[in-house]
Structure formats: C-alpha cells, structure tokens
C-alpha cells in the first residue's frame, strides 16, 4: 500500500543498472524478434518525423565528465539541445552516426542527472522539459490492426525506442533527483504538458506505458498543484473510453496509478471522489476489454471500500446493474470481484445488499456454463462469506433454495452437482428447520409461479385485444370524421371518441 507521495519501487529499470545497460539486454529474445518484425512493417514514428524540416548534422560534444565545473552547465545545456534533433527510425540505416551521437548524449545526461549533485540548476529546467517534450509528444500513429486485441495480438512497438527509452529514463531521473525542485518545475510541467503526457498512455507499446506510469506517478506525487487536474483528465479519458471509443491502451496503467491515489484520499471522502467511483469506475466494468484491466480495477474498487464502508452499497448495486448478460468470461470476473469485496465487507453493509446480491448469485448458479456456476458456488468455501451467510440464513436461504434444488437435479456437469450438494448440506446444518420447510413448500411455490405466469399471459392477451379494438374504433372514428368533412378540431373530437369508448 503506497501513498501518493511515497515512491513505489516499481521503476521500469532499477536505479543501479538503468542508464548503463542497453535496452535490448533487458528484454528476452521473444519481444526482440517481434520488435524487428514491427520495424519492418510499421511506420510508427513517421507522424512525428514528418515535422522535422531540415536535418541537422550532429557533431559530438566533449564528455560531461571531462568538463571543468565552470563549463558543466553550459555543456549540459548544449547536450539537451542536441537531443532535440529527431531521427528517422523507419530507415534503420539512415544517419547512423547522428543516432549514435544522440544516444551517447542521452546516456550521459541520464547518468549525470542520476549520479551527480548540483547539476539541476534553474536555467536547465526549461531546456530539459523542452527536450523531453520534443521527443515524447507526438500524435500516435493509426493502429496497424483496426481490430487490435491487446490480449491476442502483438502490440506495435515504437520504432524510435532506442532514443525514446533514454529520454523517458532521463525524465524519470530528473523527477527523482534529490535536486529536483517542484517549485521550479511547475512552471514548465503545466496542465498542457500533463494533458499531452496522458494522451501518450494510448501507446500500443507496453514499454512506453510502463515508463509513463512511473513518471505520471512521480509528477502526481511531487507537483501538488496538478493533482486535481490530473484526476479530472483521467476521468475524461475513462469516460471517453467507456461511452465513446472503447479504445484506449493505457487503462490498466492509469488504474494502477489511481489505486495508490485512492489509498491516499483523506476521510471523509469528498463528493468528487465518490462521483468518480460511481460514475467512472463502476461503469468501466461494462467495457468489452475488461479482462485487460480488471485486476487493477477491482483493486481500486476494494480500496474505496476499505477507505469508507458506506460506499459498499453503491458498488454492489452498480456491479449488479452492469452484470454481464452474455459474456460468461466477464461473469466469472465479476464473481471474482464480488468475492474480493465480500472478503472485506462490513456485516452491517452486507445486510443492505444481500437480497439483490444473492438473487444474482442464484442466477449464476443456474448458469449452464459450469465455470460461472462453479465460481459462484466457491463462495461457500470462503469462511468469512460463509459466516455472513450463516448470520443471515433466514433471508438468504429462501433466495437461493429454489435454484439449488432445481439445479442439483438438472445440471449437466457432475462437479457442479456435487458442489451444490455440499452447499445444500451446509444449509441443512445451518438451519435444518428452515431447510425442511422450504423443501416441503418447494412444489407449492412452483405451482404459484406457474399460476402467476398464466395470469400475466392472460392479462396481456386481453390488453392486446383491447388495443386492437381501440385502434379499430379510432380508425372508424377518423373515417366518420372524414365523411362529415369536419376538418377543424380533429384532435378534440378524437379525444372525445376515445373518452366515449372508455365509459
């Protein structure tokens, strides 16, 4: 559990090896192969590269470590400016010399910021932020595969990663440096900057999103003035994802950051935060690609509950409202999340939601998909949930009994049947009197249900008959009217006709 100000140890590269080890050595062979393929196929950095009007020839500058102290800052600044030159990575052989010079310069900058003190003086801030902006901010290219499925397909990897990674690394070291002064940085890392940073979370490249996650977390931790703005913009990204596009690659990463942000919320929860839970986090469950970020989402939801138990009812009723109707895979995820929630639920809150909740659980138990039924039945293996059920046996048993009884007789899957027998046995031991009563009245209840259904059918039949008759009489009335050539007050006489019909 981390608070927003504490730095998590999840930096994409550990501090000791970060800047000196070339990126390729840190990834295994498989992604590297796919990266090669990606470079051949993709025009991934073109959108950015296009805007570089004339290519500048780079000349190597002296090394930072050899520079006399008096010239150090000046040299640092020159290196930053040198790193503002962008290269075409689609053409692997273009300007290899220039690429190498920039790579070496970036490496030096990273090392210098990470290891030496007193480098980050005020005039360097705008230069550093400018270098970062020029390199990382770009319109992400169209996805090669319009049906990109993050679970199945290989992501498109950023062609200019050899430079981009070092720029991100530099940014991270910059933010983490003991010399870093938020009061100076906030002039350059402003709202516009953050907005562009957030848009980059849509990158298909997971390596880039990993860096962005850590960086945004640092920004959130250090630049207090931007916090509300960051939360609001994340909201907007999520709402757009939920209700407009259903596409955004960085949902999981943003949720991960939010997980720790929620943890740091002050009590009592502000209404802004509750609204975020009810209107953003809960509707996020409707997304088609839920499986990609469900773990992070469930974590956020549980965080909210642990902060303030009174939101429990909103959460459970929200989940029930968005319960998947046709996607069993998602249903299993929902059940998993419900169990996580029940694990930490307060008994007083449980009572408020038990009725609708156990109706849904009963529906899951009767699912023909055995994984759904099985997942629901596993709740009875959870000791805490079992104790809640036992305390409220009088309410819950009647809700689920009919389903258990019926499914125990007709489910196709043997495992489900034996699980149900165990559950029935548990109930019998809990409250044998109630159990016997329910068994005895099962048939009568069934009959009652059938009768009700019949009545409903009858009601609708006669309603529809009447509907027909009324339509006929309305048609007749209008025909009569035409005959009479009474063009005025059409509506009035029509309502009179129908009023006459009702008496």
């Amino acid at each position: 559990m981390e608070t927003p100000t504490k730095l998590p140890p999840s930096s994409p590269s550990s501090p000791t090896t970060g800047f000196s080890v070339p990126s390729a050595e840190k990834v295994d062979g498989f992604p590297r192969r796919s990266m090669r393929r990606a470079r051949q196929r993709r025009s991934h950095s073109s959108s950015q590269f296009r805007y570089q009007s004339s290519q500048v020839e780079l000349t190597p500058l002296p090394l930072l470590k050899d520079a006399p102290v008096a010239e150090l800052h000046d040299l640092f600044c020159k290196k930053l400016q040198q790193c503002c030159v962008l290269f075409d990575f689609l053409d692997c052989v273009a300007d290899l010399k220039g690429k190498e010079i920039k790579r070496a310069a970036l490496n030096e900058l990273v090392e210098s910021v990470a290891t030496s003190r007193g480098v980050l003086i005020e005039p360097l801030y705008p230069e550093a932020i400018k270098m970062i902006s020029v390199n990382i901010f770009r319109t992400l290219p169209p996805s090669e595969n319009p049906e990109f499925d993050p679970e199945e397909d290989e992501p498109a990897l950023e062609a200019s990663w050899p430079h981009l990674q070092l720029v991100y690394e530099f940014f991270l070291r910059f933010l983490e440096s003991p010399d870093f002064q938020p009061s100076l940085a906030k002039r350059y890392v402003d709202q516009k900057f953050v907005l562009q940073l957030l848009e980059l979370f849509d990158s298909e490249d997971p390596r880039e999103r990993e860096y962005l996650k850590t960086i945004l977390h640092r920004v959130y931790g250090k630049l207090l003035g931007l916090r509300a703005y960051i939360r609001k913009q994340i909201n907007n990204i999520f709402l757009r994802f939920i209700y407009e596009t259903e596409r955004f690659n960085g949902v999981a990463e943003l949720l991960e950051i939010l997980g720790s942000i929620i943890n740091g919320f002050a009590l009592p929860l502000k209404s802004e935060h509750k609204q975020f839970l009810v209107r953003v986090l809960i509707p996020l469950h409707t997304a088609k690609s839920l499986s990609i970020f469900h773990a992070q989402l469930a974590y956020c939801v549980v965080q909210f509950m642990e902060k303030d138990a009174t939101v429990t009812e909103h959460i459970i009723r929200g989940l029930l409202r968005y319960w998947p109707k046709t996607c069993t895979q998602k249903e299993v995820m929902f059940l998993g999340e419900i169990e996580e929630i029940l694990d930490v639920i307060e008994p007083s809150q449980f009572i408020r939601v038990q009725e609708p909740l156990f109706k849904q659980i009963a529906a899951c138990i009767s699912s023909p998909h055995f994984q759904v039924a099985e997942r629901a039945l596993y709740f009875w293996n959870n000791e805490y949930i079992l104790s809640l059920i036992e305390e409220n046996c009088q309410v819950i048993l009647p809700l689920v009994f009919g389903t258990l009884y019926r499914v125990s007789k007709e489910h196709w899957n043997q495992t489900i049947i034996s699980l149900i027998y165990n559950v029935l046995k548990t109930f019998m031991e809990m409250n044998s009197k109630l159990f016997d009563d329910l068994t005895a009245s099962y048939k009568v209840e069934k009959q009652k249900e059938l009768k009700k259904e019949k009545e409903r059918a009858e009601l609708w039949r006669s309603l529809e008959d009447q509907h027909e008759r009324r339509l006929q009489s309305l048609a007749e009335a209008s025909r009569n009217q035409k005959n009479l050539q009474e063009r005025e007050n059409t509506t009035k006489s029509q309502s009179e006709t129908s009023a006459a019909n009702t008496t």
Partner: protein
Amino acid sequence: MAGADSDDSLYPIAVLIDELRNEDVQLRLNSIKKLSTIALALGVERTRTELLPFLTDTIYDEDEVLLALAEQLGNFTMLVGGPEYVHCLLPPLESLATVEETVVRDKAVESLRKISHEHSPVDLEVHFEPLVKRLASGDWFTSRTSACGLFSVCYPRVSSTVKAEIRQHFRTLCSDDTPMVRRAAASKLGEFAKVLELEYVKSDIISLFTALASDEQDSVRLLAVEAGVSIATLLPQEDLEALVMPTLRQAAEDKSWRVRYMVADKFSDLQKAVGPEITKNDLVPAFQNLLKDCEAEVRAAAANKVKEFCENLPEDSRETIIMTHILPCVKELVSDTNQHVKSALASVIMGLSTILGKDNTIEHLLPLFLAQLKDECPEVRLNIISNLDCVNEVIGIRQLSQSLLPAIVELAEDAKWRVRLAIIEYMPLLAGQLGVEFFDEKLNSLCMAWLVDHVYAIREAATGNLMKLVEKFGAEWAQNTIVPKVLGMANDPNYLHRMTTLFCINALSEVCGQEITTKHMLPVVFKMSNDQVANVRFNVAKSLQKIGPVLDSNCLQTEVKPVLEKLASDQDMDVKYFAQEAISVLSLA
C-alpha cells in the same frame, strides 16, 4: 374484471405498473415495448396523470429498458391526447437525456427532437426551451451533451429574445470544460449554423468554429472539419476566403493524422462547398499533400476521392489540373507500400478515363491500370476488374485484354476461396464486355473448372454464373458450349460433382427453355434417380420439383410422375420426403 366482457373495462394502473416493475428484466423490457398498449388501455387522461409521472419517477433501470422507453415516448403524442398535451412527455425524456449510457441518451434526444415539431410555438417557449436550458446547464456532462442536439430544433420557431439566449447557451457549451461536451457541440455546429440567420453565422458561428478547430484535443478538431463544410455552404462566396479558409487550410495540415484523415474524407463535400475558384487555388495543393501524406490511412482516404475530386473540378481547367497536379501523385500511389492505399485507388482510378478521354487514357492511364492488374495484392486486381465498364466505354476493353487475361486466370486460381468467389461475380460483366468469342476461347474453361472446385461456395457461385452467362449469350450458345459439359459430369465418380450437374440443371432449365430441358437435361436427371448415393437421389427429387414448371403437362404426367413415385418409395427417408414434397408441389398426386 379485466377484459372478460367485450366493452373496454378499466385496468387498475397498479396491475400495469406491476408489469413495468417485474423483477425479471426481460419481462420488464417486454412490458415497456408494449407501453403504447398500456397507455391505450388507460386512456389519454390517465396516461398523462398516472402513467407518465410513474415513468418519470422510476427512471433507474437497466439501460436496455431505458432505451426502449426513450424510443416509445417519441411516438406517444397521440396517446397523451395530441399536440396540445405533447409537453407532458418532456419530464421523462428530460431524465432519460441525462443518463450515462450514450445509446439511451441519444435515443432520448432523438425522441425529443421528434416531438419538438409537435409543439406549438408557445409551448416550445414555455415548456421545451426551458428544458433545453436546464440540460445545457446541468452538473454532469451527460445532460450538457444532450442539450447540444436540441438547440437547432427549437431555434427557428422562438422569439428573438429566446433566440439570443439559445445562441448564448450554445456558445458556452462550445467552450465547455469537458472534451465530451465540446465534441458534442462541434458535431452539432454545422446543423446549428444552418438554422441561424446569416449575420449570426458570421458573427457567432465563425468564432466558435475557429476555436473548436484549434482545440487542444484532436477528437474535437476533427469534428470541426465537418462543421466547416456545412458552414462554407452557408456563406456567400466573397466571405469564404476570410472566414473559413484559414481554418480549413490549417486542418488539412494538422499535426494529428485523424484530422487530416477527416479532411480527406470530406474532401468532395468541401470542394462543392467552396466553389471552383478556391478549389483551384487552395484545394488542389491541399489534395496533393493528402495524397502524399505520411500516414497510409490519410492517403487511402484521399485516394478514394480522386475520381470525385477530378469530376468536380471546373471544366475549363480540369484536364490541365489533372494532368499536371493530380496524375503525378496518382502514379506514385500505384506503387504505394500500403495495400489499402492501392486498393482504394484501384476502386476509383478507372473512373478517370471518362474524364480524360480516349487519348489521355491510352497514354497515361492504361499503364497504371496494367500495373495495378499485376499488383501482388488480389484486392487491388479485383477492384480494377470490377470497374472495367468505365474503361470499356472510353477505349474498349480490347486494349486491356492482353493483360486482363493473366490477371483473371490468376485470380480464378487464387488459393483463397473468397478471392475466387469475388472474381466469379464479375464473370458475367467481363463476358459481356469481352464478347462471346474471346470468352469461349479464354474464359470458358475457367468457368467450367469452378464447377469442380473443392469449396462448395465456389461450386454454388459457379452454377449461378452459368445462368447469368446464358442470359447474356442465349440458349443456343448454352446448348453448344455449356450443357454438354455439365451433363458429362453426371457420370463423374465423385458424387459431389454429380450433384453439381443437378444444381446446374436447376439454374439453367428456365433460361434454356422447355426444349433443351426436356430433350437434353431431363433424361440425365432420370438416369440419376438410380444413383447409389441417397444425396444424389433426393437432389433428383428436388431438381424435378424445380424444373417441373418448365416442362409441359404431358411430360410431367407420363415421365416425371413415375420417377417421383419410385423415389417416394425409396428406402432412404430423406429421398422419400423430398419426392413426396415434389409430388405435392407439382400436384401430381
């Protein structure tokens, strides 16, 4: 009690409301979908006083139910007592216009727009416009988004003071804090501009358009492009240059490819909106840039518009512009690295020949057609072939036939059956244009080969193709070239091929006519009724049913009937079933 007697008894509203509150969502949904039945049962007055308040109060349900409700209410005017009471429908629709789910909200807005026309001008000001205002100043973005779609329907019919208010509200929403609302406003900007007086278009809309077109989010900017096209159509020519062109020029060079894509996608509309002079000076270079864009998506969208763009160029300079500015770009696109770009181009490039005329087509376009006919991507080749008719009119297809043939043969034998299927579809067109001689010589064998393809869909399409060919070339041609080959397959050792004979006969009997059917096809069908494979036999029964109407009644009675009767006593139950069906359909029993 309910419905027992013939006169219209009153239902207690509670019973009906119980139905709307049923625990089972599906039942609730069914009830909502029949809401008009309930309303009719209640009568107009109780619908107004009891049903609508209930619906307004209980709007917290599954989105599916809300969607159905929003749709129903759009058609409720008569059920509440006609236009003078239509405003009673506003409260529930207002709530629905604020829910989270976009689909529900959009439907509610659609219904509100619909019933707005049924309001009298007074009701519009007293009831409708205040609702729009409430939505426009709602707390949560959903209601403000919905409001964007309602301004244009009430604006034309309200007083000038209210009009000023409406303009003010729209202005506020265009600079809303949430991008969702700005997107909604941008997407309705063009529509709103259309109902405004020209002076306000110039004073209000232009500044909103300029602001939205330079929004920080590209999703807003791209929506402004479409609005720009609508606005341009509203303005007099002399104002265009100063008021919209700077913004549109900037959009065509936007740093986000999505915005540039939108410009490319709307290019023809834009061209029509700005007129010939601006087209010549501004759009031609912009179009060239889009055709050379660094993102394939943009190039493909622009390539799609090449023909339309050229067609709409001012006549006096059309040819020069195409030859000097457009054609060089098109030439490059023919060898583009992206297949979507090439196939987009291939689907329109043939259309240029009618615009450029015979000589230019032969000199400049033909090499491009030929290059595309040899493209590695089958879709490109298919697109060229599917548009052959345009070229045929200008230079005749003979010019192409040398290159056409290898392309067709290659597609006809493509490893992907969907490609083969696509080329089959164009066969009748090709046959018509190449003529019967060329066809017999070069393509006939292909058409016959498809009949024995190992994919059923291809065999099926091949039979349909034969029918269309006969329609083109006539029965006599069929008798000489196709029928013998088709009938020959009746002796094939593979029962699937024998069945293909039957399918062909089904397709051909009608176009070939009674004589050929009776003389040549029927004996083969009869012979196949003794086939040892049951599937063949029951297809014989099906075929006889199918070709029965072509035959004369004498033949039916004396020849077909005995065969079907024999099949009706077959040992296989499917054969029996289809034989009996044929007997009853042909009324031979």
